[in-house]
């Protein structure tokens, strides 16, 4: 092999560093992506600091002030139990984002390990990827229904279901990009130096797969939030009185005609946050994919 002289000492070849800068620049030149990024940051901050930002207690009832429209009581009104909508939305966002984070992290880790194993050990590949095909042939909603039936409805059921649905997708993404990386000369060099498998995967394969993983995780986060909110809306996820955006939208169904804001506000928050993740993920993919670059 001619490229044994690849810079093994560094984690990333200098080209990659330059590329990272240009990716960031490209991302920031896209107005939509900037707005999406700002919204995501805002949502994460809002969710993280919900207990300090909220004007009231998310679980304290105020039955004298139920279903007040926005502007009349608090900035965004109150829900069916007189709870301030801003508080509920912040805490709901917190639950929804944590639910998404938990399922993407759990499913992503398991799927990632499977993907790397399938790419690195061709003998395992057939079995593992057939298994992934089987998981992939079922939609997330079916996992949601089955797991809620087994363990009973609740946030853990939703997280497990969404994690399981994420595993095969992540495994495919990771295997695909790891296979490309494994063709590179520096991997050959690392192997001929006698480095261990785990060392090679963690130090040389993983860093070079990060961009593909990053795009996938961003897009998946939006999908998982949408699915999780839908499951909670159905009553299979977060149980009352837990503030969760999907469950809040379901709660508002009862007052749809005379207090639509109880349903509409959490729905809008879900829509905006999922849209932000989708736009950001698309922009990242365009920026990281050399084929699409002008």
């Amino acid at each position, binding site marked *: 092999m001619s490229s044994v002289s690849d810079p093994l000492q560094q984690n990333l070849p200098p080209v990659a560093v330059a590329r990272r800068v240009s990716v960031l620049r490209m991302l920031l030149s896209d107005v939509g992506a900037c707005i999406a990024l700002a919204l995501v940051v805002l949502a994460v901050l809002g969710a993280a600091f919900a207990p300090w930002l909220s004007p009231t207690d998310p679980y304290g009832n105020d039955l004298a002030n139920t279903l007040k429209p926005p502007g009349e009581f608090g900035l965004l009104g109150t829900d069916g139990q007189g709870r301030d909508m801003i508080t509920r939305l912040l805490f709901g966002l917190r639950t929804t984002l944590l639910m998404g984070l938990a399922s993407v992290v759990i499913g992503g880790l398991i799927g990632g390990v499977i993907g790397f194993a399938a790419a690195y050990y061709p003998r395992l590949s057939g079995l593992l990827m057939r298994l992934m095909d089987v998981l992939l042939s079922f939609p997330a909603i*079916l996992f949601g*229904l089955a797991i809620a039936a087994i363990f009973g409805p609740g946030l853990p059921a939703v997280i497990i279901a969404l994690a399981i649905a994420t595993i095969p997708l992540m495994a495919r993404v990771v295997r695909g990009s790891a296979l490309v990386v494994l063709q590179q000369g520096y991997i050959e060099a690392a192997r001929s130096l006698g480095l261990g498998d785990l060392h090679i995967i963690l130090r040389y394969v993983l860093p070079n797969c990060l961009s593909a993983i990053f795009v996938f995780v961003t897009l998946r986060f939006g999908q998982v939030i949408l699915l999780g909110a839908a499951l909670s809306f159905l009553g*299979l996820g977060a149980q009352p009185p837990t503030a969760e955006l999907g469950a809040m939208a379901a709660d508002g169904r009862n007052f749809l005609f005379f207090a639509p804001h109880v349903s509409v506000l959490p729905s809008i928050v879900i*829509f905006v946050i999922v849209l932000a993740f*989708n736009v950001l993920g698309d922009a990242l993919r365009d920026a990281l994919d050399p084929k699409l670059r002008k």
Partner: protein
Amino acid sequence: MLRHTLQRLLLVLPVLFGVLLVGFLLMQVVPTDPAQVRAGPTATQDVVEAIRQELGLNEPLWKQFLIYIGRLAQGDLGVSIINNVPVSQELGNTIGPTLELMVASLIWAIPLGMLLGTIGAYYRGSLLDRAIMAVSVAGVSLPVFFLGLGLIWLFGFKYPILPFTGRTGPLWTWEGIQGIIMPAITLGGVFVGPVARMTRTSVLDELGADHVRTARAKGLGEVTVLLRHTLRNALVPVVTLIGLQIGFLLGGAVVTETVFSWPGIGRLAVGAILSSDLPMAQGTIIVLSLGFILINLAVDVLYAVLDPRVRGA
């Protein structure tokens, strides 16, 4: 092509086994004793024991699994805990409305999505293309229940022109059609975006192909080039992708049925799970999974029919 189909069929078997096993295990984790449930709370120990024998509950697990599969093969999915109706009967009543809803949604959403995607690809980079893509990204991000509740508020309350609770009659009557309009718009609405995106990508790939340049060089009209030489080839990946998105459609259907009280299988499943009616929940999950496996199989075969390269294999 026969070989391709047979191969796919063989792959389905282990999946099928997995689904049945999950269904079986689902019944094993139930804390209540099924024999006790059948016998009723006042039954004596002897009666319960007799029913245990009859149901085969004293046999080892693997034998119970075989009995279970035998019963499934005869269409016996057990009896609802809540209202004592056979699960298979309830399922039979709800499959029709669910299929109705899905067909009514796809029948307008797929053509519209393809049209938008083709327009976007043809005028790529233009303001029109960007608008179509923006709308489709927004469509993918829209919670189904938001669209449903919004429509109910608008056309059920503000301008009350359409019914929004349940199936209002058979589809061949005006009442029935009125009743399905809003659910079909809701479920189809979230499907337009993905179809438009897939079609656009696929058509873009084809537009750059050599045979399209040749077709233009021959002096064919743009419409012919677009429809016969581009869209027709672009359909192959689109059909597959639509097949893969059926899961997305199913998820939407469950939510849509709940929002509009549509008497479909998704609403039945959710209701059964929420009321801990495990035989019913198990039945709905098995039927939905089987339906899903069948759709995947059909998409695979259809793919072979559409793409001669696969057909030869």
